[in-house]
């Protein structure tokens, strides 16, 4: 028996869970129901999806995902760096503390922010206590970005941390030995060596951020729609699977393009990456 047969279950799994749904999306996106009740090939769905109404939502999604990713990187890198370089014995528990929220349900975590940010919520009560005016914290872009950052930050920290801890300490010493002060060591050795982790982190934050729909609905309110909400609406409420598929296809292409772009920046050939 050839060894490759052992991969058969995996192949079947992939076919059922990945290729079949993708083919279905392709099929629905390029078809429509004819008046006779049959199925006809058409490009209308795709063309309609490029209506400014929808591209505006798409652009907003891309922008918010970009902002959230940037904030995650700015917050996550220092955290990952400190965790990686800390000599404290509590590092593991700190790391677990960081991952802990991920074990809770995603929606539950996001609902928790409602309680915090609501007009009569914890933060505003605190403001009132301090004699400050109430601030509208929910149902705006900031709340959505906050939700994204909160939910996806661990996905930025973990890959960067895992790359940073693997950096050969002798390479750092070699840099010091060759005359680099600590800032130069970071700039010329540590950061370049951590780039694969940064790339992975960016992908792992950007992709879910751009496709999210629950966060925007809960924290952004119904008036604040992202592309993910748009797709969800088409399937659940409008029940137009053909148009929903066309939108999904556009999203898919967008994600693939952004992955290809980030991969191009990642010059490292081996090691360091999560996959």
């Amino acid at each position, binding site marked *: 028996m050839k060894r490759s047969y052992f991969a058969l279950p995996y192949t079947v799994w992939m076919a059922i869970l990945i290729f079949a749904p993708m083919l279905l999306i392709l099929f629905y996106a390029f078809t429509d129901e004819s008046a006779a009740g049959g199925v006809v090939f058409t490009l209308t769905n795709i063309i309609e999806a490029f209506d400014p109404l929808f591209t505006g939502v798409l652009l907003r999604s891309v922008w918010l995902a970009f902002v959230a990713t940037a904030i995650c990187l700015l917050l996550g890198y220092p955290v990952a760096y400190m965790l990686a370089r800390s000599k404290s014995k509590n590092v593991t528990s700190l790391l677990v503390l960081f991952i802990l929220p991920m074990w809770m349900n995603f929606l539950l975590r996001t609902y928790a922010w409602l309680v915090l940010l609501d007009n009569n919520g914890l933060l505003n009560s605190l403001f009132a206590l301090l004699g400050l005016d109430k601030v509208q914290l929910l149902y705006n872009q900031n709340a959505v970005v906050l939700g994204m950052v909160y939910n996806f930050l661990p996905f930025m920290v973990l890959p960067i941390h895992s790359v940073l801890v693997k950096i050969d300490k*002798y390479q750092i*010493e070699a840099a*010091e*030995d060759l005359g680099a002060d600590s800032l130069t060591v970071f700039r010329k*050795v540590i950061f370049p060596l951590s780039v694969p982790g940064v790339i992975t982190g960016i992908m792992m934050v950007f992709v879910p951020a751009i496709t999210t729909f629950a966060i925007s609905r809960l924290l952004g309110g119904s008036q604040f729609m992202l592309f993910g909400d748009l797709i969800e609406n088409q399937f659940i409420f409008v029940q137009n699977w053909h148009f929903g598929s066309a939108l999904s296809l556009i999203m898919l292409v967008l994600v693939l393009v952004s992955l290809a772009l980030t991969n191009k920046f990642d010059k490292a050939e081996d090691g360091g990456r999560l996959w």
Partner: protein
Amino acid sequence: MGDKHLIELKNVSKTFDTTEALKNINLYIRDGEFLTLLGPSGCGKTTLLRLLAGFEMPTEGRIFMDGADMTDMPPHRRRLNTVFQRYALFEHLNVFDNVAFGLKIKKLDKDEIKQRVGSMLELVGLKGYDKRTASQLSGGQQQRVAIARALVNEPGVLLLDEPLGALDLQLRKDMQIELKKIRQRLGITFVFVTHDQEEALTMSDTIVVMKDGEIQQIGTPVDIYNEPKNAFVADFIGESNILGGTMLKDYSVRFSGRTFECLDAGFGENADVDVVVRPEDIKVVEPENGMIAGVVKSVLFMGVHYELLVDTGEFTYQVHTTAKYSEGQQVGFVILPDDIHIMRPSEP
């Protein structure tokens, strides 16, 4: 090699948590010499090197370079460069950028960097390898890059931490010769760490033998080999027969049930001593012509010579001989006064 003391360590100790890695080290390194720190693993030789490089701070004592105290100076400001045990080449940079690293930090002129890196790569025999990355090089080539990367900065001292440990025997021999050549051309002081006594003997001007964080002996390779100060040094440097004996009076020692003439004096009368005889210093003769006699227990062919284990009753001698003997054969030994080394017994 001048007489100037380039580096001086005064009463240097280093303690990690509860382990004493170095105990009160006093040592000077002369300008231009090849000094080797030799000892078994865990003897503190690498710690000593890391103190010199600045990666570790001494718990006690001061380190001077060119007369100035550099104990608290961070590594990047020291005029020393290190060749690491596992080379520690920058994975994200190619050969040229690895070697140019130090020069770029000094913000030298681009053309000068190019010229100096080029000539250094030529010196280590890697001309034309500029664009390769570390993973595309063999162990020996990586080692050369590591050496070039350190030397291109024209350091006052080059520190080498077991740089040849990961190479196979033939490559190691070649690199030993090359390192010696490079040093002769550049005249830089080398501080070399190794646990390989043969490497230490062939390459060094001065050998510092260490054990358990303490210096056992400092001397030229010839001194260390011929006049080991104690049984540890004798055993670590080359092979030795070490046996207990009694110094009857000056120039007369008794061991193996017989009194021998020797060249040592000053131990007092009837003093317990350690006697060291090198295996190659024992001459094997017919049993009736020997000073002591024994039975050959085993014969090992070693290439150049045979290694015999000869049981004389109270001690089993290791003997090197070019003539072949067979197991069970009766043989006699002649040991000349010159070949008997007397030392104070090591502490139990």
